[in-house]
């Protein structure tokens, strides 16, 4: 496929992914409302919010790092999405995954976080670094079970290539890593909760405590970039999980179903559990999820 067409497809893919991310965020709000016995906002509420934010007439900024941070944030999300193959067999949706393997993807997740942290901290608002401190702390904690699961998968397939990992799962639902290495899957899916920063791991934003955490000072167009970045980051993460544990997707429909399933895992957990404090979250991740991850690696070693 020529590079130009590839880029065009990717651009389209990014837009779709953002839209999809906004939709599932809307679904979450709706679901949460229903769980709480409310009617809840319409599913497309996120689009309205995004539009409203873009149409804001004034914007304020602090330093120039504050200005650039949303770019890092959105760039991180989009870049991450572009490094993950979405639908196998469709070159248009395999994005730029030839650039690097799972390791690159794992590290690219941090790109956006770092940009976000830098910009937020530049606003000079004390809540921003407090939120970042919590977020980064939590990030390192879920990294251990996540890394163990990734190591287990890679060792199993003897490759860090996401494509190879997907291919190894073909040929039946029981070949999915979710069932092939359930322990690693458990570790990874618990880590996923932390990665998504929904309850019980939403101490970062912690409304009512440190208003909205890092983006306290963000507004209008900056906020819109952040919202888009967050949406596509969420999509990229679930697509990654789909590729790693649910055997990837052969069609857009399958991708839709599988990603919804993965996403609802964290939605439902978040709806039921109260919030962890930072140190509780850290200790939680370093406890049983890590044990599960170690067991997952051992499982590979024993085989």
């Amino acid at each position, binding site marked *: 496929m020529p590079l130009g067409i590839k880029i065009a497809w990717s651009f389209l893919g990014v837009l779709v992914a953002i839209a999809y991310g906004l939709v599932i965020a809307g679904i979450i*709000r709706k679901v949460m*409302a229903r769980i*709480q*016995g*409310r*009617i*809840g*906002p*319409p599913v497309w*509420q996120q689009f*309205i*919010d995004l*539009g*409203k934010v873009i*149409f*804001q*007439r*004034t*914007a*304020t900024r602090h330093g120039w790092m504050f200005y650039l941070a949303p770019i890092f944030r959105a760039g991180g999300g989009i870049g991450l999405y572009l490094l993950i193959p979405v639908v196998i067999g469709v070159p248009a949706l395999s994005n730029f995954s030839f650039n690097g393997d799972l390791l690159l993807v794992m590290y690219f997740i941090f790109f956006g976080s770092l940009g976000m942290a830098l910009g937020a901290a530049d606003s000079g608002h004390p809540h921003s670094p407090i939120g970042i401190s919590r977020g980064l702390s939590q990030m390192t904690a879920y990294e251990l079970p996540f890394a163990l699961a990734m190591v287990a998968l890679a060792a199993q397939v003897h490759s860090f290539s996401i494509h190879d990992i997907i291919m190894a799962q073909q040929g039946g639902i029981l070949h999915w890593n979710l069932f092939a290495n359930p322990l690693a899957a458990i570790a990874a899916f618990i880590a996923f909760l932390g990665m998504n920063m929904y309850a019980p791991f939403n101490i970062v934003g912690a*409304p*009512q405590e440190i*208003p*909205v955490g890092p983006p*306290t*000072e*963000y*507004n*209008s167009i900056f*906020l819109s970039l952040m919202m888009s970045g967050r949406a596509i980051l969420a999509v990229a993460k679930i697509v990654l999980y789909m590729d790693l544990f649910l055997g990837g997707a052969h069609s857009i429909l399958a991708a839709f179903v599988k990603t919804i399933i993965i996403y609802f895992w964290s939605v439902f957990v978040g709806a039921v559990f109260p919030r962890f404090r930072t140190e509780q979250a850290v200790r939680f991740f370093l406890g049983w999820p890590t044990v599960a991850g170690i067991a997952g690696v051992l499982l590979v070693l024993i085989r």
Partner: protein
Amino acid sequence: MDNKPKSTLPVLVEPPKGAQPHGPLGHGYFLGETKRQQALPMRESLAKIKNWFRANSLWVMAYGTGCGGIELRPLTTARFDFERFGMAMRPTPRQSNVIIISGYLAVKSLKRVIRAYEQMPSPKWVVGLGSCTINGGMYWDSYNTINRLDLYVPVDIYIAGCMPRPEALLAGFGELMKMIKRGEANGWNHYLENFDWYKENQKKVINDWNMPDYNW
């Protein structure tokens, strides 16, 4: 302190003659619009679309001043659920569109209200909740509460009562949304246009004006 305004004022306070648009209006936009935006074709239609977005995504500043603060909380509950109108509480003024002055307002609080209001990005709206914001209510002769909110910030809509129930508040929001869609809720423009007048009023009651002026 005898230069109190003589004229009877509607909900939106008419500025005195000769009030000039203030600073930031000069550098880039008038009434919040850039010249490029003003020159856009279909500007009216576009404005309607924008207003529709704005009306359906009202983020409320989570800020309670008087006894009415307690009336805001039920809005988020299952009984009233203002989220179905796209509204949400935001804890930071930078991301809020509406500020509700919920009841009596001490001079001391007024300072904070002004500051929060000025930190909100345009367009932004002020809801006066309860009698105290209209004419002082039962605190009319208190030495430290203001009697008329609209002398200090532009109020887009008042909700009368002492206290109004959440239903009334919701109805008020409904009205506000309609006004926004119609393009009538322009208190923030009024504030900018009569900035000096507002500042003068504010400084009359706030004696230790230690608020930095760097915002404007």
